């Protein structure tokens, strides 16, 4: 393959002085509006999000909730109407021209879509080499070797010289992933990468993602498939252009997204010092609590147990209207809880029998 792709001269992208040190992606108040004949509408309504280096994150949400739009803000395929996006220490929108962004992206991001976008006239090997040519990474002679290594990693070395039409769709997607990793980016962004694959191919792809994560890569993946979210470190739900608080979605996973969003908006953050009292026996509590950070200690006479992240307490009493039957206090490290007012909690539980029932069942006291 002849490579005469021109690489543009570039200046160093702007580093952000106050970027969160562990975060590889930081969205601050990101708003995205679209306008059409019907008027203007807001798709992302002020999204704040930090994703740390090395995290494997899934993003789910109903069709049209804004998942792809959110990813497009990170990849620079589209740009926010307001707010900032900092990726790998670089503010990718402030004072950066499209061509700088495109070069920066080539080195920092791997991107995989549902439809694989392999160039039909190039072999798998040439397709994988394409990004290296495009951003001019690796020595010219080194590129085929690196491309073969990547194809070997995804199990396609035998097909390196085949054109995409001669391999299956699952294999095409694997080649697209190899291509996304061509320039060894620290971050891989995938929009429904398993969307039109059978479960076995999908599983192969998730295993590959797990391998990348074990090597220190960060992966953010939009998916429809609930069986895949259980394999990521962190699952983020987007509802109608807003992110749901992760403590709420972890604690009450069966709740409707609109209820989760409502709770996200009214929940109060409470912080407690180690061993500080949270609830006492016989108290008429008026809040439902979810553990956000640390552990709480539940003391029932002479027995005690601990609840950590994803656990909750106080729900049964609110639903029954009875006083607290145990003492609750913070564990050995500082604790953060999210608290929901009784009135809102009980109203939503009345509309959410499955969640209400599971709170009744799993309640430890």
């Amino acid at each position, binding site marked *: 393959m002849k490579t*005469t792709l021109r690489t543009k001269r570039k200046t160093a992208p702007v580093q952000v002085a106050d970027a969160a040190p562990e975060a590889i992606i930081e969205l601050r108040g990101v708003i995205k509006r679209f306008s059409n004949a019907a008027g203007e509408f807001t798709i992302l309504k002020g999204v704040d999000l930090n994703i740390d280096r090395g995290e494997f994150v899934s993003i789910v949400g109903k069709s049209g909730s804004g998942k792809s739009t959110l990813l497009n803000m990170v990849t620079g395929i589209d740009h926010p109407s307001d707010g900032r996006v900092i990726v790998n220490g670089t503010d990718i929108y402030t004072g950066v021209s499209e061509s700088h962004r495109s070069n920066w992206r080539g080195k920092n991001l791997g991107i995989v879509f549902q439809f694989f976008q392999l*160039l039909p006239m190039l072999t798998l090997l040439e397709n994988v080499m394409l990004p290296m040519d495009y951003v001019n990474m690796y020595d010219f002679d080194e590129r085929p070797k690196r491309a073969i290594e990547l194809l070997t990693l995804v199990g396609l070395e035998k097909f390196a010289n085949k054109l995409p039409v*001669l391999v299956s769709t699952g294999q095409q997607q694997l080649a697209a992933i190899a291509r996304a990793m061509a320039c060894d980016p620290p971050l891989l962004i995938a929009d429904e990468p398993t969307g039109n694959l059978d479960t076995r191919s999908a599983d192969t792809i998730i295993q590959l993602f797990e391998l990348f994560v074990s090597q220190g890569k960060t992966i953010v993946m939009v998916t429809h498939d609930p069986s895949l979210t259980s394999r990521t470190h962190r699952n983020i739900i987007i509802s109608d252009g807003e992110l749901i608080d992760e403590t709420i979605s972890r604690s009450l996973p069966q709740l409707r997204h609109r209820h989760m969003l409502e709770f996200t908006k009214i929940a109060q953050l409470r912080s407690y010092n180690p061993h500080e009292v949270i609830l006492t026996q016989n108290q008429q509590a008026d809040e439902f609590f979810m553990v956000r950070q640390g552990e709480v200690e539940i003391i029932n006479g002479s027995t005690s147990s601990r609840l950590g992240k994803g656990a909750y307490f106080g729900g049964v009493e609110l639903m029954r209207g009875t006083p607290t039957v145990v003492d609750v206090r913070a564990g050995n490290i500082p604790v953060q809880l999210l608290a929901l007012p009784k009135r809102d909690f009980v109203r939503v539980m009345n509309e959410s029998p499955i969640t209400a029932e599971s709170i009744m069942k799993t309640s430890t006291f």
Partner: protein
Amino acid sequence: MTNLIKIKNLNKTYSTAAGDFVALKDINLHIQAGEFLGVVGKSGAGKSTFLNMINGVDQLTSGEVTVNDVSIHSLSEDARALWRSKNMGVVYQSFQLLPMLTLVENITLPMDLSDNFHPRKSRDRALELLKLMELDEHAHKLPSFISGGQQQRVAIARALANDPPILVADEPTGSLDSITADHIFDVFEHLVTQQGKTIIMVTHDMALAEKFSRSLNIVDGQLVEIANASESIAMDHTIRMRK
């Protein structure tokens, strides 16, 4: 009219774990320059296999395909890839545009890869092709900001980038609604009548057969010409074929 493509005693057998599978059986066909040839047939009939033989993407089991007097399956793999880049544009059901490149960059890419045009020329040519597809106003957009039908027209423009005389298309309208599909047909017709391209298009939609200047049906790997009363040229070809 000249016979642009000659297919002689073509057979294709796939070897699978379950045994050999004959996908194409003894195909003989001449395709003339300037034809808009439709190849219809049920799913699994062998249509894609047939296209892959014509454009040399896959190897045949026996027989010969000559295009412009070049026996394409006798070429080395590299020579065949080079030959293909100059002689055949390919369009598939999925548009496969690179999402990070603008439309004009997507079309420039094959020219830069093949080195057939000077880089400065390639960009002008890409813009011309976009104009031909009535997409020039979107030239600097990324593919995700245009519709599926528009993306397919960009893919067609890309297939035309190196100005190949032949375009092969495998179910190019398969994922488009019928109005959008009609538009793609108009584009193909224009390329045949105004630019003298030869187009071979595969579809499983039998209802489209009448849209082509000639239609062939593939049934279980065998070629059957569709008798089409309104197209005397079809009969002419049938007779020619039987010689």
